[in-house]
């Protein structure tokens, strides 16, 4: 990819710049599409239509119109807020979420950085997100914001444990933290003769691992049924209450970027990343990006689908689910996967 860019772009820094903003372009376009999709999914699940007017075909440009509106909004900072922290928080949130994309292999030809600690780096950098949320909640000087931020802190710290343990159980199988190598391991269609070599088919415990990972990632991305940080119906808007205009938009973008990030990590760890499900058919760098994003979008769609199916948990239920079910299950699963690896 870098060589390809160097072939028609002159200077070195420009190549690096273009190279590094590719995920940003993907995120921005994806966010516009995903917000529209979310509204469509919500609408159709409730037997409505969702946006239909803007842009002609099924309101496809509704999000663009919303974005234009949001940019025009006044930038309000509460009088008694901590101005510096208040203004910084959305940028740190988005930076944390964007920085994680560097270790995601979008296709066989594109990965931001071939670091060996890939998945570990992603887990570490996304923790910054909860810091930024606490920053936003504290700086707003508003009890609803602070309550939302506190909930987020508790939630993120709790759910990082099952996430990391399930990721660890995958790492036991792969033996590497580099996501590009993890994906390359899953190339081919030899499993049971026709199934792709994806890790989800590796053993029955991998299915359990995926389910645990998916539940934990819902909580990490603050999606329903774990959307307590934002819980509109209880906390006004959680940590976002005092934010307006483009700063609020950045939090929104972060939320959707986080969804995509966790879906892409899930797709890489369990569903073969950029590998085609049909072996060498429709394979290659460009098709790889297509498959990767398609798998990610399917998981994002499942997240949306769940959002309009399940009610929100209470705080105590949230902690129960994490500490009494997810963590014990993920540990047992870790041991079982390790045994499976030892035996076969």
């Amino acid at each position: 990819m870098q060589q390809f860019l160097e072939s028609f772009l002159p200077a070195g820094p420009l190549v690096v710049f273009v190279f590094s903003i590719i995920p940003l372009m993907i995120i921005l376009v994806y966010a516009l599409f995903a917000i529209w999709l979310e509204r469509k999914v919500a609408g159709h699940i409730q037997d409505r239509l969702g946006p239909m007017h803007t842009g002609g075909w099924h309101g496809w440009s509704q999000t663009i119109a919303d974005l234009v509106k949001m940019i025009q909004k006044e930038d309000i900072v509460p009088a008694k807020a901590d101005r510096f922290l208040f203004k910084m928080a959305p940028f740190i949130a988005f930076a944390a979420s964007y920085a994680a994309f560097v270790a995601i292999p979008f296709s066989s030809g594109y990965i931001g950085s071939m670091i060996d600690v890939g998945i570990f780096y992603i887990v570490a950098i996304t923790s910054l997100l909860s810091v930024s949320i606490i920053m936003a909640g504290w700086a707003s000087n508003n009890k609803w914001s602070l309550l939302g931020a506190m909930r987020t802190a508790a939630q993120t710290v709790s759910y990082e444990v099952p996430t990391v343990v399930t990721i660890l159980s995958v790492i036991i199988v792969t033996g590497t933290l580099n996501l590009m190598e993890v994906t390359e391991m899953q190339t081919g269609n030899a499993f049971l003769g026709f199934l792709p070599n994806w890790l989800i088919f590796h053993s029955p415990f991998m299915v359990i691992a995926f389910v645990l990972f998916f539940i934990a990632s819902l909580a990490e991305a603050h999606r329903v049924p774990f959307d307590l940080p934002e819980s509109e119906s209880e906390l006004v808007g959680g940590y976002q209450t005092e934010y307006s205009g483009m700063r609020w938009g950045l939090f929104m973008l972060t939320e959707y970027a986080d969804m995509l990030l966790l879906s892409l990590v899930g797709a890489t760890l369990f569903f073969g990343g950029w590998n085609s499900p049909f072996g060498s058919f429709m394979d290659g760098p460009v098709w790889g990006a297509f498959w990767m994003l398609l798998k990610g979008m399917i998981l994002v769609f499942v997240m949306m689908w769940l959002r309009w199916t399940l009610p929100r948990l209470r705080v105590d239920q949230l902690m129960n689910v994490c500490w009494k079910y997810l963590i014990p299950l993920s540990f047992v699963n870790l041991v079982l996967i390790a045994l499976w690896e030892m035996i076969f």
Partner: protein
Amino acid sequence: MVKALSDTYTTFKTIFTGMGITLRHLFKKSVTVQYPYERDVLPERVRLKLHVNIDDCIGCRLCERACPVECIDIGTIKSTDDDDLGETSTGHKKKLWVDNFDIDMAKCCYCELCVHPCPTNCITMVEEYEYSTYNRNDLIFSFADMTPEQIEEANRKLEEEAEAKRRKKEEAMLARKKKEEASAAAEGEGGEKAPKADSDSTPAGSGDAAGASASGTDASGAETSGDADSDAAREARRAEREARRAARKAERETKKNSEG
């Protein structure tokens, strides 16, 4: 441990049931009506807005009287004899100019009581419901189609006619008085009956009597003697009608009294 496992099972079972339901709804036809582009089919007898076909209105004010909230305001001008207002589509003869027909839809309670009394079916409820405005006064709908000039003209004509009638009435009374005097004189002269009848039956004969009658009308002034005569006849008919009406009224009154 067992409880935890069974709870886990229940959780997943219920989640998948719920997801099944939402998935089914995801592909179900939505119930939305894209309002400005498409509309709901309205029930047959919706009551949304009053409309008046002013060409059919005979100005009878039955609707105005039926209205419980007095949202209909009708003004009429009597037409003169030389004006022919034509007939309504239901065959009623129009006798009144309708110079004012205002319906205040802000007051209207959509009871449809005004629609049924109308003898010509000119006031109806129509399927129009997008008439909200920023100003309450814009909800007063005027259906009268007369221009101010026409109204002035109708009023002027009515006044002129009334004036003419009054004059004619006076003239007729004068004429009658004269005639009576003349007939009394004729009786005294020839002992004949009404001179006019004579002149009709035998135009050539009894010249002096005819001459006497002619001189009588001439003396009364106007050259339109025949008109004055028919006018007098009409006056007589009206008096007769009024007498009859009074009699009926008296009759009703007595009946009411007896019932009471």
